[in-house]
């Protein structure tokens, strides 16, 4: 079977409407001044904007009706993150969406109450990383026989504002998910990370002594975790692709207006041709991201879906790292300043490229999927 066989790509009517609405929302609610106003706040987001997003149903978009969601499938979150990335808007939506996916995939309706709370605007996040490696089990936090956790998680996205933590832990060596409410954390459990992207927030969290409100056990935990990390890669890629598109516009706008040596700098091929490659990279990423949106579902992810999520992440990272890097360079001296939006783009690029695993992580796994599993597709 051909290595490139599954090239399904489409947009449902619902996804198309979401894309339009979300882009309009970002345009109206999140001009770059509003984004910059949040860079040095503690929470990193505007509560009014978050409330508006909750009211539009975006927190429940990927969750089934049975738990209070919209039942549109996780592919429907892709256009929303594409649009949000285009605005560089900081919100806890990615963390909340991923927490919802992990909980739903591992526990189903047993977690209905908690999932309903996420749909209604409470903020969730997955506490995964024991330290810096996305490619290991990350089950170092232990749940003891008395039902108490011990251990620390690193780089927990939006930990400062989360109401619920889905902690990846082990119980006598077996992976479990422990659902911890903020009130169960010891005082001083959080220490904020200094992130490279100031539109994002994360913290190290010490769960020692915390009693989970719910423990999810069973075989579904491992497969749910695997699928959720792939979906995290896909949704991050969607957000990154949106950001790359915005970054490209900022470059082309500058190239069309800035003059040097008596000419618009966009007429110089030394700037023009790399800009075309930024464009091509962004379009590649967009194709992979919407291919992913087309083939992921509520079911366990297929091999094709796994390939799609990993390729989307690699393509989006490549596109954004190149776009952000060139954005600084092509703006010249101004590009080197804090005032220039290139600052935001290059920082987003460096943040995004590690989330849910960087290029090495995914390319290594793609090699095994594509080259060792002949006919497996």
């Amino acid at each position, binding site marked *: 079977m*051909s*290595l*490139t066989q599954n*090239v*399904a*790509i*489409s*947009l449902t009517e619902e996804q*198309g409407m979401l*894309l339009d609405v979300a882009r309009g929302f970002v345009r109206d609610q999140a001009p770059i001044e509003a984004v910059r106003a949040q860079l040095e706040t503690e929470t990193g987001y505007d509560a009014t904007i978050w409330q508006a997003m909750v009211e539009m149903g975006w927190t429940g978009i990927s969750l089934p009706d049975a738990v209070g969601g919209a039942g549109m499938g996780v592919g429907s979150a892709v256009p929303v993150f594409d649009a949000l990335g285009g605005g560089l808007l900081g919100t806890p939506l990615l963390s909340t969406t991923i927490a919802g996916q992990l909980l739903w995939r591992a526990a189903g309706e047993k977690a209905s109450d908690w999932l309903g709370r996420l749909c209604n605007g409470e903020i969730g996040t997955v506490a995964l990383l024991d330290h810096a490696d996305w490619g290991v089990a990350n089950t170092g936090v232990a749940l003891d026989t008395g039902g108490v956790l011990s251990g620390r998680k690193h780089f927990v996205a939006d930990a400062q504002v989360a109401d619920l933590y889905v902690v990846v832990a082990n119980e006598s060596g077996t992976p479990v998910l422990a659902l911890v409410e903020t009130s169960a954390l010891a005082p001083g459990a959080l220490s904020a990370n200094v992130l490279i992207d100031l539109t994002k927030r994360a913290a190290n969290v010490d769960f020692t002594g915390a009693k989970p409100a719910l423990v999810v056990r069973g075989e579904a935990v491992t497969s749910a975790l695997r699928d959720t990390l792939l979906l995290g890669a896909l949704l991050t890629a969607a957000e990154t692709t949106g950001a790359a*598109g915005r970054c*490209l516009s900022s470059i*082309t706008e500058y*190239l*069309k207006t800035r003059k040097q040596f008596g*000419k*618009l700098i*966009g*007429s110089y*091929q030394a700037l*023009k*041709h790399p*800009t*075309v490659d930024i*464009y*091509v990279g962004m*379009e*590649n990423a*967009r*194709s*992979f991201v*919407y*291919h992913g949106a087309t083939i992921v579902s509520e079911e366990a992810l297929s091999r094709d879906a796994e390939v799609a999520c990993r*390729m989307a992440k*690699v*393509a989006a990272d490549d596109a954004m790292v190149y776009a952000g890097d060139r954005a600084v360079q092509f703006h010249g001296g101004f590009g080197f300043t804090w005032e220039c939006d290139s600052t935001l783009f290059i920082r987003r690029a460096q943040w995004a490229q590690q989330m849910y695993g960087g290029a090495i992580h995914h*390319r*290594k796994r*793609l*090699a095994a999927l*594509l*080259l060792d599993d002949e006919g497996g597709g």
Partner: protein
Amino acid sequence: MVDNKAALKAFREDVAAWMAENVPADPGFLLPLTFLEVGTEQQLDFLREWQHKLWSAGYLGMHWPTEYGGQGADPAYQFVVDRELGRHNAPIIFNTIGLNWVGPLLLDMGTDEEKAKYIKKILSAEEIWCQGFSEPDHGSDLGAVQTRAVKDGDEYVVNGSKIWTTLGNYADHMILLARTNPEAERKYDGLSFFLSPMKVAGIEAHPIRKVTGEYGFNQTFFTDARIPASCLMGEEGGGWSVAMKTLEYERGVTAGQASGHWGVTIQVDDMIDELRALENDGEALLSDPIVRDDLVGFIMEAKALSLSARRMAVPALNTDYPMGLALSVKYRGTEYERRMKQYTASKQGARSALYVGDADAVRGGFWQRAYFSNFGATIGGGTTQVQANIIAEHVLGLPK
């Protein structure tokens, strides 16, 4: 419209069955990889006969009107035929300039008389077409064409020279861009477009040898060549817009081509299959982590190209740059193929150094030859660098 999926599927089965019976066996001499490399009479006769056979069976020009020799069907049927040609490793359908550029152009902009006169013979391979656009001093800068055509009664007298004339030494007709008015205020307004005969006194095509060692294109000299004035297509001075329309067909920006099977199809799967059989350091080449990572990159490029082709049909996913994907097909596809072929040619140990004709060469030197041949795609029809300018200016709106 496609009637239904079942009809298309039945058609696919018919085509496949016909091809299993009728695709010619290896003739025992080297066949060209693309239509740009038809270099011997032996190749020409073989390919002409094969195209005629395919057309006679009703499998060429599927979506062209029946009155001009087509099949009057949906374009989807042509895609089916092209795909089956690739799957059966069929020899190329070589009259490409006629089938893919001139034919669609005439159907779009030609008079009824022109359509009746030329189109059927393009399909049947009775008449071969070539293109006279580029000149020795004006390749990518087409607007600067200098070949002169001067009206003299009911004829034009043509003087000058064209270059890279693929199939020129075998062609019956040429689409010719020539300057009829050197005084025009805009250089573009002095150009006219002709459907010129080739077999007239004063037109000579001299074959040029290529980097592959093969022939296929020519330098064409016009020395007081007299062609009928009726060969003028459109208005005198209106040649530029016709030429630009031709390039849209040539670059695949606009659909209507009668056969996509103008070259041997080489896919990323072919590359992986070839490399899978090779060794390095006494181990399977595909166990090398660097090679594996490179291959992931090639597979992703191939997949991105296929996905983009599909995505073009989803307007809601192309709102930011509506023409962008179509205008970047050539830029991306031809460069990817060049690198993919070079890569495969260079991973064969000492045998990488062998070329067509050496009994030890991997697949007869197929990859080495394919790599060199691919420059026809990255240079012809507007170089990669010109394509980058086109994308920058027409998609991204950057200044000239």
